[in-house]
Each structure stands twice: as structure tokens, then as C-alpha cells.
């Protein structure tokens, strides 16, 4: 099973994202409600893939990306955000995220990214 982390301070957002995952994707999902928890889960090896919200208390998504850059960044980080301005997209790609998905996340938006990186067949 692929360990993945869903990091978002909103319960609704965590639920909506979980619902958008491929139903037959063989994953072990851990949840983080702030950036610090997300980073801790990464360090425990629970984040081969991390879905990361940008606006969170106690370390934002940007902070998490910065911190990951100083570690090995052994994770595919997909930023999930309501801020869909082109500049916001460019900033997170610069920080090492593999993709940027606009909220609300749809399976149609998610699938091509998972396939491109060989995370889901």
C-alpha cells in the first residue's frame, strides 16, 4: 500500500479530497490538520504522496514545501488550493511541488497527474 498524506485544516476539504481519490487506489491515508503534522508524517515515512493545502495554521503549505527542500524531498507533493492564480501555481512549482490542483478537486483533474508520475496504473 502506498502511504499518502492529506494535509488540510478543513474537515470538509479533507473529506472532499478523499472522495476524489480513485476508489481502487491501494493507499494508506493519513490526515494532517496543519503543516507541522504534515511534516511529522512525512518524517515517519507516511507520505510517498502528499496532498498539501497552502493556507493552514501552524506552518502553511509554503512552509512545508520549504522545509521539505532542506530534507530529501522524498515525496510527490501535490498542492491543492483555492488560489488558482497563475502566479500561485508558478510559486509552488518553484518550491518543488509536482502539480497544482484547484479546489474543488475532481477525479478528472487528479487522475492524469497520478498516472503521469506512475503513482496509479
Amino acid at each position: 500500500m502506498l502511504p499518502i498524506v492529506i494535509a488540510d485544516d478543513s474537515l470538509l476539504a479533507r473529506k472532499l479530497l478523499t472522495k476524489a481519490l480513485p476508489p481502487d487506489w491501494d493507499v494508506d491515508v493519513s490526515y494532517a490538520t496543519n503543516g507541522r503534522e504534515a511534516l511529522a508524517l512525512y518524517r515517519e515515512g507516511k507520505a510517498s504522496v502528499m496532498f498539501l493545502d497552502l493556507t493552514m495554521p501552524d506552518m502553511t503549505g509554503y512552509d512545508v514545501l520549504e522545509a521539505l527542500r532542506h530534507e530529501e524531498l522524498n515525496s510527490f507533493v501535490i498542492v491543492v488550493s483555492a488560489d488558482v492564480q497563475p502566479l500561485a501555481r508558478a510559486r509552488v512549482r518553484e518550491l518543488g511541488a509536482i502539480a497544482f490542483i484547484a479546489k474543488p478537486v475532481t477525479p478528472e483533474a487528479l487522475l492524469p497527474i497520478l498516472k503521469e508520475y506512475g503513482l496509479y496504473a
Partner: protein
Amino acid sequence: MPEPAFTEDQRDALQEIANLAMGQAATRLARLLESFIELSVPRVRVVDVSDAARTLREMTGIDETVSAVRQGFRSDIKGEALVICRSDSIAQLCALVSDPYSRSSYEAIGERELMLDVANLLASACVSSILDQLGRTPVFSAPGVLGEALTLDDVFQPGMLQWRKALLVEVNFALETTSFRAHLVMLMAEESIHHMNEALDALLSSL
């Protein structure tokens, strides 16, 4: 009718819904102004109407006079959308838009029209998106300028809202590299708060 209130899950859901709506509105504003918009964390509160001005002052940090535009929306969830900016910041907005506003020979009319356009864009995009996520399609009244040099107490005159309690949702949009910031405030009365509670519960239980 019980005292209007939100559970923690309902408040969280409305905040996330507002966050998403704000993102969509910001994209449209960014396109209009060709600027990057910094987003805020949406704030959701149930307040005494008599306390609305004080709450807004605390949320926005605005002590100066403001320009305010008001637009009503109706569905079973209904209320008022207000767009508020510091009076002295409108000129910064105008400076960004070279065409067609600044070519107007009537500068005052240009500022007023731009403020109305921005307010209408933010209010309709945000309110539509929030209610759409809750399965509602609102009808809007025409936006109207409340005033261009008002205090927040003027904006929330006791007579304006014939309610006791109001649900207040605030999001704001800051233009990067300027000090311009527009605050969008949605106000909804008791009855709408109950419909909002039901709509949020329905959404949460569908997941």
C-alpha cells in the same frame, strides 16, 4: 426558533466553502486588474447586529472612512453582500486600470464606476460560488453605492438591518504591491442561518 449558532463542523465547512469562492473571485479580479491578489483566511461569525460595526472594525482594522457598495441576494438563504474599502485607496485601484476608466474626463465618475465594477464582480462571484456549493442559485439585486466617505457605523446603521442576530462572513482581497484591500462581507439573518445550517449538514453528510 433556537438561538442561531454553528457547530464546529458547520463553521469549518462554511469557511472552506468561502475559501473556495474567494479563490474564484480573486482569479476574476486578478484578470481585471492584471495584478496578483493576496487572499485572506475567511472569517465566519454569528454576531449581534448592534455589534456588527464594532466586529467589522476589529476584523478589518479600519478606523478611517470607507467606500461601500451593497448588493442583495436571494434564495432560501438570503442577505446582503457589502464590499468595503478605505476611501483613500480607490485612487490606487484606478491607477492600475488604464483603460477605459482613466480616460474618462469625469474622474469622479470613473472612480465610482470602477468601485461598482469591482464590488459587483467580487460580490456576485463569491456569493454565487458559496450558494452554488450548497445547491442554491441566488438572484441578485442591482449593486448600489452606499457612500464614499462613511464610517463603519454609518454602514451598519441600526435601521439598515431589521435583524437581531446576523451571520457574518468576511473575506478580503489585497492587491500585491499596493495597500489596496477590498473586504467582502456577507450578512445573513436568523432565518437564513437556519437554512445555512441545514445546507451545510446535508453537504457534510453526503460525503
